[in-house]
């Protein structure tokens, strides 16, 4: 661990958001009052579909967008009215936003130069960061002469050279190709482990969220749907929105009706026993559905529509009472020309949601 790592670790600050709102006018509210606390040194991924307000949230933390109401605290300091440079945040942008006319060295040193740091100290810091990111040999190149991954690294270097308390990422991997995205993801995770800066990472890619995050903040229309660890979000989604958003293919959501002792699908087949009456939604992950086997749930029949063989597994799409259910099965299962499938939904794997609000109802089906 070198000097830069230590300095950033020491500077890592918590972010507290209290009643934060953003509205361009009374009709267009992007973020209704929001309260959330991100711990110092934590890697938080803000995940949501486009237009959910995740970038706005990030830019408000950075100071690039005005807040319409509420407070933002970095550490113990209220920062919502401060200029970006006084907040101790650094940001990595989606398109890198490197200064095209400056060399890699000048790009990384620019913020230090603006801050009035002595030339020798500047060079020392930039060299240390460049070495850490494997950019030492490229310091004199212009951004135009670098590959996408290298540019990304320069953007990260430019951000961490200031030893910020908070590192902000705005969809930084979406411009890279699949292979590079994977490599950069690993590098980012490694970097965070080493420098331990409080990190807020905005993305719409669930894989990035699942692999990088300590905790994932899922936003929907500016509201927090769930804020929890990747594991908890995957296994205990707090709402239908989260259940559908996480997982590939996503969780199957089916409308059911309770008659006091059982839950029935639209076509009358029983999927679970529960002392419930009225309309509900149940969810089950594609990989939790058992085909042809014995499990602790009820057997239902579904018509096979099509299959996708993906090598590691196959995804079947079946028609169950009018809605399509996706099932992940081991590759090579002998079901090519069968039209009817015997499915079993293990009760322990079922998720129950309120039909009206879409919120999860943990425990209503018995122990999870």
């Amino acid at each position: 661990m070198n000097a830069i790592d230590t300095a950033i670790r020491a500077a890592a600050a918590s972010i507290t958001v209290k009643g934060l709102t953003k509205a361009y006018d009374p009709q267009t509210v992007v973020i209704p009052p929001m309260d959330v606390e991100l711990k110092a040194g934590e890697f938080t991924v803000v995940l949501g579909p486009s237009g959910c307000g995740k970038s706005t949230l990030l830019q408000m933390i950075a100071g690039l967008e005005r807040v319409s109401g509420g407070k933002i605290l970095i550490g113990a300091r209220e920062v919502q009215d401060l200029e970006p440079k006084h907040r101790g945040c650094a940001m990595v942008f989606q398109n890198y936003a490197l200064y095209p006319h400056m060399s890699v060295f000048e790009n990384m040193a620019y913020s230090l130069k603006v801050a009035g740091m002595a030339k020798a100290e500047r060079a020392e810091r930039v060299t240390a960061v460049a070495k850490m990111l494997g950019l030492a040999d490229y310091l004199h190149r212009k951004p135009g002469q670098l590959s996408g991954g290298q540019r990304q690294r320069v953007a990260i270097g430019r951000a961490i050279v200031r030893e910020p308390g908070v590192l902000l990422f705005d969809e930084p991997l979406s411009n890279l190709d699949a292979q590079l995205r994977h490599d950069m993801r690993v590098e980012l995770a490694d970097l965070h482990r080493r420098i331990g800066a409080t990190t807020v990472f905005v993305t719409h890619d669930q894989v990035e969220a699942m692999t990088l995050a300590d905790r994932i903040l899922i936003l929907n229309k500016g509201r927090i749907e769930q804020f929890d660890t990747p594991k908890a979000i995957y296994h205990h989604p707090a709402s239908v929105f989260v259940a559908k958003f996480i997982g590939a293919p996503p969780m199957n959501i089916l409308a059911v009706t309770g008659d006091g002792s059982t839950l029935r699908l639209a076509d009358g087949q029983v999927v679970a026993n529960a002392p419930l009456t009225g309309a509900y939604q149940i969810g089950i992950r594609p990989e939790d559905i058992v085909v042809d086997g014995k499990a602790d749930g009820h057997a239902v029949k579904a018509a096979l529509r099509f299959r996708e063989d993906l090598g590691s597994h196959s995804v079947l799409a079946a028609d169950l009472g009018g809605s399509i259910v996706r099932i992940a099965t081991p590759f090579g299962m002998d079901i090519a020309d069968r039209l009817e499938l015997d499915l079993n939904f293990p009760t322990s794997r079922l998720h129950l949601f309120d039909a009206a609000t879409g919120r999860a109802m943990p425990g209503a089906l018995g122990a999870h």
Partner: protein
Amino acid sequence: MIENARSLNIVASLILLVGMLYILGPLYLTLTTASQSYEFLLRNGLAWYPGDQFLNNVARIFTETRIPIQMLNSLVVAFSLAIATCILSFLSAYAIVYFRIRWAGVAFALILATIMLPVDIRVITTYQVASNVFSPINALLDVTGLNGLIAQVFGEPVQLELSVLNTHFGLVAPLVAHGTGTFLFRQFFRTLPGDLFKAARMDGAGPVRFMFDILLPLSRTSFAALFVLTFLSGWTQYLWPLVASSTPDMQTAVVGLARLLPDSDGEVPDFPMIMAGAVIVSLVPLLMIALLQRYLVQGLVLSEK
């Protein structure tokens, strides 16, 4: 379309040849005339072949006419026009692109409108304003009735007067108000990633610092292109310098050149000397194009977008 028919090739070459004659013919005549003596012209009419009097004619331009001082005027006008246009265009485009101004769209539309209203169209009103730059204020005072009030209180209405006619400022200022440069810079700024401004803010650079450290170095080519274009247009301006300057010492070279023609009818103009003057006056823009043609092309490409 690529055709290989021989007959087509010949026809195409012929058309090209005619076009070249059309353009180069007058140029050739300019050069040959400039190298003949006035007597030769009086005897023979058009000069179809070059003579040996070119240096003599050039010397006469420098000794007998005001062209040298007028070229100096042209230089002052063209340079100040180019520099002022560059600065103004850069700043206005910066304001329009990078700041959230409610009426930025309207402002930009008005700036664009100036492209459709060159000095040649509004020459009379421009002359009126130039002859008294306070005339709009006077008119405003009259219309609003304030002047009547002032006349009652002080005994006399306000009539401010300041003429910029026959000054270098008066020659340049009306030409600066032209939207092409703003448009060119705006188009260029819009090709830059928008996050650049945000990145600079995160790095602690305010709007002024961003302008000097980031935007200005990036705009070098656009500056050069706009500079060449406006310099050339300033150098070749005819109508406005003709109207706005009244003494020969304030006129630009192009106007001076036209004034070399005798005022009275019947006299045969000293064409060899005038043509020699035309050659000299053309040298400056020619030099400019030769040195900066790379940027000229880029500028034309940019403004076409």
